[in-house]
């Protein structure tokens, strides 16, 4: 694949890049037009705000996943990680309530706990993959099961609920707005800008791409491969903890069903956005569009009763495949690529 695409890129570099960049955006535009035609309320301010806020969780996680996937790794544990971090945040804040009251201190303790856990969980995934020399798929499949069962255990099979006294203080982090945009959207924008900068304007980003393209060559080029790869999992963990911090105040609860399949949604957002699943090419901007596409699909399906509810999964699957085909398909790229 790498050998095939490199000569193609050098032959008609601008054309290929343009298509890759435009593909996800074209798909999103088409979806928005369809949404508007089905129901003009789709473009109402309320719905647009809901859409952006909702895509913030998957979007923030997917920015982290872009780094992991670009270096040729994969992290299947993010959904379970989000669930267990939510659970721990709730437990910590509920117990801090007695000592520190329902003020900002308790909320800060909860958020601090989330970040420490996120970085820690990412570090474990990263070290097991690099130092432990176990395939990322297996490591994160393992931690996925561990995190999921831990949250079930902490919740005693039921649901962990944040104390109502703290909810009042913490609520604005999800429901509040700054300059007309909800706080989670600002977090999303902030993470997206940092992620873009890190990927496209720093040595770290170039190392990620290099490792994903060819790990051996990267190693001979004096890149500290293990360190960079571990760092991508730590970044992923940090992104999960940020997503959790804005997720918890929404419903103030965590259970075994929190964050189920988020890992696949995050991976789908990354791939829809144009990043290559086997690594070597990562696009943060595309990932953002990918996360928005996934949210818009769910939203449109809720906006129409034209399609049987039983077929929601079919529609989602079709749209995801078409969105990726729009940017990967041979059409428009010319026949030179084949040879």
């Amino acid at each position, binding site marked *: 694949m790498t050998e095939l695409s490199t000569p193609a890129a050098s032959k008609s570099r601008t054309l290929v890049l343009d298509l890759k960049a435009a593909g996800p955006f074209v798909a999103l535009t088409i979806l928005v037009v369809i949404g508007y035609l089905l*129901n003009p*309320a*789709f473009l*109402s301010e*309320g*719905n647009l705000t*809901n859409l952006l806020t*909702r895509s913030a969780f998957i979007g923030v996680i997917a920015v982290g996943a872009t780094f992991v996937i670009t270096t040729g790794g994969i992290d299947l544990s993010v959904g379970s990680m989000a669930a267990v971090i939510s659970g721990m945040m709730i437990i910590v804040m509920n117990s801090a309530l007695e000592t520190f009251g329902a003020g900002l201190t308790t909320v800060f303790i909860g958020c601090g706990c989330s970040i420490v856990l996120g970085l820690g969980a990412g570090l474990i995934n990263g070290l097991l993959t690099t130092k432990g020399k176990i395939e990322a798929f297996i490591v994160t499949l393992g931690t996925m099961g561990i995190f999921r069962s831990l949250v*079930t255990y902490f*919740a*005693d*099979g*039921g*649901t962990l*609920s944040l104390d109502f006294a703290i909810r009042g203080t913490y609520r604005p982090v999800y*429901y509040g707005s700054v300059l007309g945009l909800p706080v989670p959207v600002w977090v999303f924008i902030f993470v997206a800008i940092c992620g873009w900068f890190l990927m496209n304007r720093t040595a770290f980003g170039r190392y990620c791409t290099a490792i994903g393209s060819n790990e051996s060559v990267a190693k001979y080029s004096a890149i500290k491969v293990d360190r960079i790869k571990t760092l991508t999992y730590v970044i992923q963990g940090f992104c999960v903890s940020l997503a959790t911090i804005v997720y918890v105040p*929404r*419903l103030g*609860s965590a*259970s*075994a*069903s*929190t964050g189920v399949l988020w890992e696949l949604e995050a991976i789908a957002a990354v791939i829809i956005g144009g990043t290559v699943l086997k690594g070597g090419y990562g696009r943060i901007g595309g990932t953002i569009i990918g996360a928005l596409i996934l949210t818009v699909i*769910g*939203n449109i*399906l*809720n*906006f129409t*009763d034209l399609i049987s*509810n*039983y077929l*929601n999964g079919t529609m989602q699957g079709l749209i995801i495949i078409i969105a990726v085909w729009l940017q990967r398909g041979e059409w428009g790229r010319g026949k030179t690529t084949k040879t």
Partner: protein
Amino acid sequence: MKHILKPLAVATATAIGLTGAALAQDQIRIGVSYPTPTHAWAAGMNWHAEQAEVRLEALHPNIDLILVNSPDPASQASALEDLVSIHQIDALVILPFESEPLTDPVIQVRETGALITVVDRGLSQPGIEDIYVAGNNPELGRVSAEYMMTRLGEGDNIVILRGIPTTIDNERFDAFMETIEGSGINVLDSEFANWNRDDGFEVMQDFLSRFPDIDAVWAQDDDIAIGVVAALEQAGRDGDGMFVVGGAGMKETIRAIMDGNELVPVDVLYPPAMIATAMDVTVAAFTSNGPVSGRYILGATLITQENAADFYFPDSPF
């Protein structure tokens, strides 16, 4: 292999059984088998089973209840074998993980002469169990619809959030639709919210963007209802007599009903405590002088502020 081992196992079981019977003349052993909780309702069910064990054993010194929970259908089948071979149970109370894979193991238990009580999920062959205890899904739909009809009339609009596409969900939904037919209440749309708070929140947000005039919501489930309430509050559409009807009997919901919550004024019961009912009935089969065998279909009681205290278990996880 299985064929060789089976007669052996039966032989040992009989041998132990004889000595066991000699030691404790009238000790009645009842095995209780149910799934390990994967969601809050099942966690409540586990809790109620443990409560019933303590209560029944204190009440009847000659009754020994053996509780086992299993994480999947295969281990539940093994648990049944253990209950027979190690504990020589006189009766089995089972909430099957899945109907199909557990039908045969339960028949095996029955062949040892044990009394069989099946809870909630029926087996795939009729006539195996002596006692059947279950909640009533169509009734849950019907009771919810009847409550809606007391509050709403001609031209009022509701939206429905369904569970996961399953028989349970279809039974509830079909009974609801049948009951409100002809009442003039418009069902604007229904979408699946997977018995999940997050999905309840998102589906309700979309309903609110899509329909400017909604008078009530049938959320069918207490977890979905929590998401629905959060969406209503966010959009500021939780006033003007808007109300949400959930179902199951979660303790937080019942607490709110006791306190006179207007947004969620009632709940419809689908009790996790049904396992306790089944254990009571099974014990009665050994202690009562009346006949006990038969089908016990529990009511889908409408929980209101007046009777909420009867269904409130603050220590249960659900």
